[in-house]
């Protein structure tokens, strides 16, 4: 049976993580930027799962579970913030959210 080196999973996670970073940098829509953060979290989750497999440790998987919960909570708050922002500024474009600056 052909096995997959764990390093590949890790590299896949790294790819996703960096695409997440890139998306954060490039996207203008606040909601999409938030999604890219979710993407980064997912990448980390994959890393966790891969390591959990490596160490035969269930705690890695449980960590992922908690990350999901946290992500849900963050999503609730984050989206609320986005709504508040939209109400105040009538825009979702981050480039237009720059009142606070030098």
């Amino acid at each position, binding site marked *: 049976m052909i096995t997959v080196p764990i390093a590949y999973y890790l590299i896949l996670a790294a790819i996703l993580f960096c695409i997440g970073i890139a998306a954060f940098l490039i996207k203008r829509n606040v909601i999409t930027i938030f999604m890219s953060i979710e993407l980064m979290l997912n990448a980390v989750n994959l890393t966790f799962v891969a390591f959990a497999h490596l160490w035969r440790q269930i705690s890695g998987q449980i960590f992922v579970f908690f990350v999901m919960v946290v992500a*849900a909570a963050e999503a609730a708050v984050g989206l609320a913030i986005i709504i508040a922002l939209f109400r105040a500024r009538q825009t979702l*474009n981050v480039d237009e959210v720059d009142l606070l600056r030098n």
Partner: protein
Amino acid sequence: MELVLFILFGLLAVAGALNLLFQRHPINSALSLVVVMMSLAVLYWSLGAEFLAAAQVIVYAGAIMVLFIFVVMLLNAGEEEETHGSKIAYIAGIPGAAAIFCLLSFVFLSERSRLGSTGLGGYLSGAVSNIAEISHTLFTTLLLPFEVTSILILIAILGAVVLARKEL
């Protein structure tokens, strides 16, 4: 078999992620993200994390992403405009991201031989199911985090109420 799965869903995940990046409408990006999550669920499964695979589909793709899409709809977000807000993001950020990727790959590749490979399916002993193991750990050694998470959720609710409540 495993390799096939990995390549297939790995590529799908990367493609989804890239699609998220390149799509200009948030709905499309959200759907791409769902694709990524689904692919990852398969990979979790192939790594022996059945419970997580399910949770990924249910919680992440099912709940969180729905929330996203709901907000996108609520705020009636349209396509992104191409505004030129930030040069730094391209000058410093993208090379930074690329560098991070290179560094991570470098580390993983150089440690590759010490990490070994995966075997398909559960790595735990067949006697105990994945879910049983998780729930046992969750209610013993990791009881406190589990309980404290409730505070987190409480705050999230409170915060969402405070922030999104329409008044003044």
